[in-house]
């Protein structure tokens, strides 16, 4: 290894380096720019920096190609998965920064710290999806988590926000502890913390006769607990409603896409090598050997998560809280894709996540605007919105329809592709025209998914009803500034425009 290679090592993580530099810059700026101007100045710098980093991810410098593969002694890996999710995370961070600038919730607090925390969390998420080493994995997860805890509690004078931060911290600490325990199991079993090394050892061992699956499953479940916490997966979801409701709304939006995405990205990172193998449910029901337990495990988790999220969401009256449960339900749908355990399903998950990213951010933006202008996120604040500002209401309709999965929106194609993967797994498990247990399993899973989509319609419709069919006491017109209206419109246009999903499909297929 020459020195030049040492420097080249840094190129793949150039976006992260840029991000770190921007964090330092924002912190410095915040110190020296007068309070009144710091909001805009820091915001713009943070936004510009994120965009530059995003640009580097999309068009990597030529040398990155040469340095691809393991870098930093195999700590970092650069592949389609990490490229895709880094793009999403940086995009999510940039959007969250704009959300922050457009929201009044954090206006009385210093922005520099807020923004640098968002960037810090993004940094953690980006490194998490790229890490190929359990130590790195854990470190970046903690970077993400620690920043998120502080962000959730950022409006420290509000009881709900402080509660959110504390709850998040407590749950998070336990979850990471459990995860480290699981990682130690893997280390104990295989003698390495290199993720691909662990996976190789497990794969080889599992194909041997007399492989004891119990410690492996135990370790997997323990690691899954840490990631499940990030994904808001049942049974690690109980923090989500309180945190989503209490945190400032831009942070909620950030958590619902970037933090959740990081969880799924990490899960994919760990399970992706198994996808290429033949670890399908067909094998599971045949002999219950090897990795075949995982699809069943994911299916159970998926059904539990989406059903729980949807059923509890039915009774919610706070839109932020409702969206929290809806985001739990969406985690369930994404997990449904995990249960298929094929490269196709990884693509479907990424595809779904992209669509979810757009529509969910859009929905949260509308919530931010409503909080700005009407003063709360309760269902009552949405009453009669269609008559007070039709643009905002129309945008919200589109997001809600999309979250339900009704055409002509992005959510429809996302669900379509996801269900397609599940059903085709069922079909390929069939022997001729004869149903096997595995095909029943996948068809059943798809049916549960469809039923859950139907349930979700009920509570999304609750918001639609409040906006269109009810009237508020204050029926004055709601005048938005061009940022508020334009942003909502842009997201709505994207949500409908993604019905043409060819570019996203191509992007995902590069994996």
């Amino acid at each position, binding site marked *: *290894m*020459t*020195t030049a290679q*040492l*420097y080249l090592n840094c190129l793949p993580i150039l976006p992260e380096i840029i991000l*770190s530099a921007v964090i*330092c810059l924002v*912190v*410095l700026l915040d*110190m020296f720019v007068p309070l009144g101007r710091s909001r805009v100045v820091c915001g713009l710098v943070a936004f510009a920096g994120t965009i530059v980093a995003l640009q580097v991810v999309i068009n990597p410098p030529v040398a990155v190609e040469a340095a691809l593969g393991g870098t930093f002694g195999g700590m970092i890996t650069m592949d389609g998965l990490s490229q895709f999710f880094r793009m999403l995370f940086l995009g999510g961070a940039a959007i969250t920064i704009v959300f922050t600038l457009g929201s009044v919730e954090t206006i009385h607090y210093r922005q520099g710290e807020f923004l640098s925390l968002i960037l810090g969390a993004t940094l953690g998420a980006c490194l998490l999806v790229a890490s190929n080493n359990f130590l790195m994995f854990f470190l970046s997860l903690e970077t993400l988590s620690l920043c998120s805890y502080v962000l959730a509690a950022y409006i420290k004078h509000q009881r709900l926000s402080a509660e959110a931060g504390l709850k998040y911290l407590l749950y998070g600490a336990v979850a990471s502890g459990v995860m480290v325990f699981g990682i130690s199991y893997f280390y104990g079993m295989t*003698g390495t913390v290199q993720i691909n090394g662990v996976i190789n050892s497990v794969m080889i061992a599992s194909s041997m006769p007399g492989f004891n699956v119990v410690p492996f499953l135990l370790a997997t479940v323990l690691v899954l607990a840490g990631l499940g916490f990030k994904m808001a997966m049942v049974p690690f979801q109980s923090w989500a409603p309180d945190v989503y409701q209490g945190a400032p709304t831009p942070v909620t939006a950030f958590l619902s896409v970037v933090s959740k995405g990081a969880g799924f990205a990490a899960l994919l990172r760990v399970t992706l090598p198994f996808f290429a193998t033949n670890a399908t449910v067909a094998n599971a029901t045949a002999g219950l050997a090897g990795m075949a337990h995982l699809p069943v495990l994911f299916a159970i988790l998926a059904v539990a998560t989406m059903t729980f999220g949807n059923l509890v969401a039915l009774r919610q009256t706070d839109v932020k809280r409702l969206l929290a449960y809806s985001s739990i339900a969406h985690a369930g749908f994404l997990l449904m894709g995990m249960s298929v355990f094929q490269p196709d399903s990884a693509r479907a998950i990424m595809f779904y996540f992209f669509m979810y990213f757009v529509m969910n951010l859009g929905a949260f933006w509308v919530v931010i605007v409503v909080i700005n202008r009407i003063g709360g996120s309760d269902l009552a604040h949405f009453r009669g919105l269609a008559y007070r500002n039709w643009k905002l209401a129309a945008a919200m309709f589109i997001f809600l329809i999309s979250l339900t999965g009704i055409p002509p929106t992005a959510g429809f194609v996302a669900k379509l592709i996801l269900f397609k993967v599940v059903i085709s797994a069922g079909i390929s498990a069939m022997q001729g025209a004869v149903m096997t247990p595995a095909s029943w399993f996948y068809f059943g899973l798809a049916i549960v998914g469809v039923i859950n989509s139907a349930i979700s319609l009920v509570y999304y419709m609750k918001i639609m009803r409040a906006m269109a069919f009810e009237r508020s006491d204050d029926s004055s017109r709601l005048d938005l500034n061009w940022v508020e209206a334009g942003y909502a419109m842009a997201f709505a246009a994207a949500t409908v425009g993604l019905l043409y999903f060819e570019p996203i499909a191509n992007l995902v297929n590069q994996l």
Partner: protein
Amino acid sequence: MEYLHPYIPILMIVVLAAAFAVVTIIASALIGPHRPGRVKALPYESGMVPFHEANIRLPIKFYVVALLFLLFDVETVLILTWAIAFRAPGAPMPGFQGYAFLVMLFFMIILVIGLLYEWRKGALKWT
């Protein structure tokens, strides 16, 4: 279980240490003379009589200083170990020192920014 063999000395040390502690405490309790008295039971053997509860509220500044100290202390520990680890074994690669120096320089810059931040935030102010 072969791979656990190198750990046997460590296990022996742990056992020995624990045994030593337990043995000395029990032995002194058995062998030593016992003449308890009121003065001996007081917290301070100097004769000072405590006049209020021991757990009082300390000013938060102490905590801040302790926190900052801890931070920089850990960083010192890191720098020291790093210096040892980066003393490349065998023939040093040309230009490696420069690389290593740059890496640590960035670390130090971030540290300085942190220090600046503390300063501007008033964390170093005592009054």
